């Protein structure tokens, strides 16, 4: 009997998260003058705990009050009904200790739940919507408090993010409906964020997806308003400055205003908006990129613009703080910090803004004149 008890105790202890030396001794706090500053982190593929810690330290030191972090369903529920929370626990615990709020992005279909025929990465058939909802609810319950904002899926208006199926607002609304109740019952304080639609000009019938304006309008037409508390928007600047006028046939930063107009027309003006992905890119080989100086300047001007004009916006989150490794292509030039943790100049510029440190009106000197 005693041996059995000892064995049981050992088994329980062995299943606990191992003690860590990486957690700070006490909970830290973010010093910021601009609480709307937020960054998207990519910690789900970090192997080393130290990399998670250092990334989140850099987010805190930046002056970001909040991070957006992906918590892949496929990583947590590898077998139906068996959740493995160790990685998510680690990320949430470190974020808490750095004083960071977490907006969780939920998605990525586990192998067992993927459509048997297509096996496509994000192809979830409707009969398994309750399985996703159960994961979302379990997540909401486990992290209630530290994580009270949950984004249901990512960019469902793109075929690639929708299991290579045609973009289908009605199915996305049914996924929202399936998830909303379970999440709210698990954590009544939770805010369910819908959308996170990709900015795109794809017309109806396109194999690649559907533009986010038509997609959102159709969501409202189908009664989606009941099934979310706030809207997540992806707002990239591409080659245009942040103040450029929005238009349905233009991709630019202020295109978000067109989604906001759809919300207002649908009577959803009381709901807050979270821009959970944003930024400019300065890769020399990408046709949608700008110069490094423009990237930093546009990013700061975007924050200043939303501060002055968008009182409906809760957070503006920059994609992305850092990648775990270089991909040797244009995505590397969306980051604020290199893969080896070296902050780029844009990081320091954003830090100056967020922390309220001195910042000149223009970050550079005027073009030199020969006779100056």
């Amino acid at each position, binding site marked *: 009997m005693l041996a059995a008890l000892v064995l049981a105790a050992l088994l329980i202890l062995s299943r606990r998260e191992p003690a860590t030396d990486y957690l700070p001794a006490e909970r830290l706090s973010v010093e910021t003058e601009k609480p709307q500053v937020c960054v998207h982190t990519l910690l789900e593929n970090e192997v080393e705990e130290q990399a998670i810690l250092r990334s989140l330290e850099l987010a805190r030191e930046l002056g970001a009050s909040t991070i957006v972090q992906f918590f892949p369903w496929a990583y947590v529920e590898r077998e139906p009904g068996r959740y493995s929370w160790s990685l998510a626990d680690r990320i949430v615990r470190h974020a808490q200790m750095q004083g960071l709020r977490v907006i969780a992005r939920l998605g990525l279909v586990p192998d067992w739940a993927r459509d048997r025929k297509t096996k496509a990465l994000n192809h979830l058939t409707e009969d398994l919507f309750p399985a996703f909802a159960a994961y979302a609810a379990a997540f909401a319950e486990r992290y209630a408090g530290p994580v009270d904002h949950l984004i249901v899926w990512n960019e469902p208006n793109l075929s690639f993010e929708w299991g290579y199926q045609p973009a289908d607002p009605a199915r996305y609304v049914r996924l929202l409906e399936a998830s909303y109740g379970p999440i709210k019952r698990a954590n009544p304080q939770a805010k369910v964020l819908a959308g996170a639609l990709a900015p795109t000009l794809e017309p109806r019938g396109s194999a690649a997806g559907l533009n986010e304006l038509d997609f959102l309008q159709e969501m409202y037409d189908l009664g989606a308003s009941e099934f979310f508390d706030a809207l997540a928007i992806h707002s990239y600047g591409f080659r245009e400055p942040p103040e450029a006028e929005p238009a349905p046939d233009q991709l630019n930063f202020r295109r978000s205003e067109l989604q906001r107009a759809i919300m207002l027309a649908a009577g959803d003006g009381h709901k807050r908006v979270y821009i959970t992905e944003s930024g400019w890119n300065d890769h020399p080989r*990408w046709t949608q990129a700008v110069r*490094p100086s423009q990237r*930093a*300047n546009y990013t700061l001007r975007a924050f200043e613009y939303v501060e002055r004009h968008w009182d409906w916006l809760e957070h503006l989150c920059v994609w992305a703080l850092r990648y775990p*490794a270089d991909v040797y292509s244009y995505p590397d030039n969306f980051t604020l910090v290199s893969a080896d943790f070296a902050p780029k*100049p844009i990081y320091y510029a954003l830090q100056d803004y967020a922390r309220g440190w001195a910042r000149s009106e223009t970050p550079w000197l005027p*073009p*030199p*004149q020969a006779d*100056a």
Partner: protein
Amino acid sequence: MKRRLQVTRALTVALPLLFLVAASLRHYQPLDPAVAFPAGEIVIGVDASFPPFAFDEGGESRGLDIDLGIALAREIGLSARFVSISFNGLYDSLIAGKVDLLISALRVEPARRDDVRYSQPYYNNGLVLVSEASASLEPEALAGAPIAYEYASSADSQIRAWERAGMRIEKRPYELPAYALDALRFGQAEGALVDATSYRLYAKTQSDWRANVSFVTHDPYVIAARLDPSDAWKLVDSALSALKASGELARIVETWL
């Protein structure tokens, strides 16, 4: 007796060596362009949206990488044919065998070494510290000097790294690398830190201006070939060596930069 022993010892060492040399010669075959490039031409993938390395002019690809591809093929004894591919599709085309080589201002990507073999560098686009010809400025002597650079660029990162190392620099950020070089030329900075291509393009427009240039970082551009057939890579690398030795590569770079 002693002499016989010495001869025996010498033969003991020499015979196996001779055998090894003979065996390797038996298997040695000179590199054969017909084996490496069985189509009788070298098909080169290029992203023609990156002037002056490659760009489209009237439906025809032109630029430094194009001229380099032509010269390499000529050195190997074949003709070159160029296929225009978007930057993100270059490696897929190479690995799928649609092209033989990529010459497209590429940097070495360590993660691709399982599929791809890179040539020696043909161009260095690292950061250069530029100073007036009359006042040579080395990185070690920067302390207190006004240095011009592009705001938020890799030059900005380098200057911050120098500062972290304890160097005191009077920073002069500008919106564009050309403005940083203007500041140097107009006497408003003692040095300008820019990438080599920006410097070369600027210097071409200022024919009467002389400057000292020293590399601070290295950013080599290379040619990519598939691992198999290995002859292709060997032929390209030795042809590149020949172009360097003859001065042809330098002439091509001078033409465009």
